[in-house]
């Protein structure tokens, strides 16, 4: 059944999440002891041992790592840093940040701007890149193709920071078409989101187009393409309908490959354009050395990535009848 296929994919994700949980715990509590965290927040000079202990008490870092001998029964295991700070992540209970804010509430307020930026970038970017790649393949072997590929390599070689600074300078400062940065709620947000969306798409244009072009070139010599041409279909129709449909599996796989990049991209984009999303939240936390927030975001980022993988697996069912058939057997 299709449902067993989906269920199997979900079950496969669990050991990975456990692994990531242990990894983040090791990183944030073994490599870096709670005492270190306290010292970072209190400043390195003139701090007493009791100040460190107080800070740990307030922020819940005073508990033992794995086993609490002072408590009874189950509390021996639950009143520990591992349970309170790490196991609770599985139910998306992120606790308080090192400055005392409720992380879950902050995420609730900030996920919408992030999605408003990431989803248009993903969809429009995909359409634009695939269209350009198909055009390059249509004109393969000509100077247009050559120039296109060369431009792609140039675009790849330029730092994303250049696109941001140049875009901001040209469109916002010189021509004054769009606001430089900022964000407001509601429909007017589009005014502020337009520039970061455009820059994000442009920044990934080179690598994406080149990748899709290579993908379509793989398909072009296959037998179904020859058959389609023999039927008398126009080259345009062959490419934009037949080849595109058959390249859907690698395209979908590619989307998963860029999902974490999207996260990375929006991290910088959001903080550059002062969009109050999860990306700027994370960058601010990194700069303020808020370990609790960074730890939560590492876990949340992984959950989102694995969720994206799951969606891809499910979408395979929809685009490829062979996967559908295998899963029902």
């Amino acid at each position, binding site marked *: 059944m299709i449902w067993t296929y989906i269920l199997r994919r979900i079950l496969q994700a669990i*050991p*990975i999440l456990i*692994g*990531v949980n242990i*990894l*983040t715990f090791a*990183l*944030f509590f073994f*490599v*870096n002891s709670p005492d*270190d965290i306290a*010292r*970072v927040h209190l400043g390195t000079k003139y701090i007493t041992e009791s100040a460190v202990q107080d800070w740990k008490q307030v922020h819940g870092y005073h508990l033992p790592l794995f086993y609490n001998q002072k408590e009874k029964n189950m509390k021996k295991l639950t009143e520990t840093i591992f349970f309170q700070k790490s196991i609770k992540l599985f139910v998306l209970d992120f606790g308080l940040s090192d400055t005392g804010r409720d992380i879950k509430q902050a995420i609730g307020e900030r996920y919408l701007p992030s999605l408003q930026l990431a989803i248009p970038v993903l969809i429009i970017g995909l359409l634009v890149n695939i269209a350009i790649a198909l055009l390059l393949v249509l004109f393969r072997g000509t100077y247009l193709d050559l120039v296109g590929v060369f431009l792609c*390599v*140039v675009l*790849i*070689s*330029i*730092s*994303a*920071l*250049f696109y941001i*600074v140049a875009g*901001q*300078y040209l469109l916002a*400062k010189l021509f004054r078409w769009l606001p430089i940065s900022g964000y407001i709620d509601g429909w007017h947000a589009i005014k502020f989101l337009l520039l970061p969306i455009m820059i994000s798409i442009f920044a990934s244009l080179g690598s994406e187009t080149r990748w899709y072009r290579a993908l379509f070139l793989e398909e072009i010599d296959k037998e179904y393409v020859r058959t389609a041409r023999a039927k008398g279909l126009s080259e345009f129709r062959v490419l934009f309908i037949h080849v595109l449909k058959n390249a859907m599996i690698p395209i979908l796989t590619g989307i998963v490959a860029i999902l*974490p990049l999207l*996260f*990375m991209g929006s*991290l*910088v984009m959001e*903080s550059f354009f002062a969009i109050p999303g999860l990306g700027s939240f*994370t*960058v601010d936390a*990194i*700069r303020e*050395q808020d*370990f609790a927030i*960074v*730890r939560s*975001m*590492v876990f949340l*980022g*992984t959950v989102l*990535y*694995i969720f994206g993988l799951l969606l891809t697996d499910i979408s395979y069912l929809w685009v490829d009848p062979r996967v559908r058939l295998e899963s029902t057997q």
Partner: protein
Amino acid sequence: MKMIVLWTDALVYLLVIGLVVWIYFFRKTQEWRLILAQLKKRPYYLVALLILMVYGIIGILDSIHFKTASNEFAVRSVLDLLLSPYDHVSEVTYSAPFATHSAEPQVLKTEDGHFAEVYPKLKYFHFLGTDKIGRDVFYLAIKSIRTGLVIGTVTTLVMLPFALLFGMWAGYFRGWVDDIIQYIYTTLSSVPGILLIAGAMLSLQPKIEADPDIRLLILCVILGVTSWTTLCRLLRGETLKLRSADFVQSAIALGVTPLKIIRRHIMPNLMHIVIITVALDFSALVLAEAILSYVGVGVDPTAFSWGNMINAARLDMAREPLVWWSLSGALFFMFILVFSANIFSDALQKAFNPKEN
């Protein structure tokens, strides 16, 4: 004069020695001939290689450090010596490329005792101008080459043994070894790279202390840990394919030990994947350095790097008159390196991909 070897210097020397030894043994192989054929066929590949070599030489010159008897505290490199006096003199503030006077007025006492706003005359000629605190932009951009190269190459040096070993083990032995290795790299690659790097850099920050060199080294190690998974996955897949090939099957049937099979029959056939991935990773890493510096988990803020230069120059764009030279200087030198590396990796790809020829 006393020579000083920093940690990253030692690794750079190691890399150079490794490269020489590798070329010595590699030049007899089929791959070497394929690469040479590509370089001969398309001269712009040769130009890219030459530019990379110039960058490489600058990087190596900047990795030979010494202290002079006259100044016990200043650690200088051979490159500093060549670029002297720009390594120790600085102007007051911004000045445009080729300018003779500062771009910012200063209130100074004039000869007749009055105070007046004047544009101070520059002490030296600055071909790319100077930055906010009067440092020569050309000098900064040239000094940043070493950081970029170290991040691009030492990271590879760190991750290559793991990727090769684990990838070949998983593909050759299959079974539970494969399961464990697959689990490790799936888990590591599920964490969005930038978050893993940020998390690791943050936790290690109290331990790194204030040594920019150690911080650079740690950054390379962390980047290596997060980036070996892609190569490992590719190598595992290819090893799986090779293992069922006839020549490996007959070697197994003849009773050749696994170690020998891996070394003689599998590893040479993986080399083209390794070379292409290393070349592609290199340019990605150089670009990543700038992003990481912006996020605040990159190299030490006092170190010379294009990321730091861009970060410092970002706010310059809001000034009137516009200060564009610092930013464009950093971006230009970075672009040339990454562009040459991309062109050259294209040559490698063409050499190893018979379909493209």
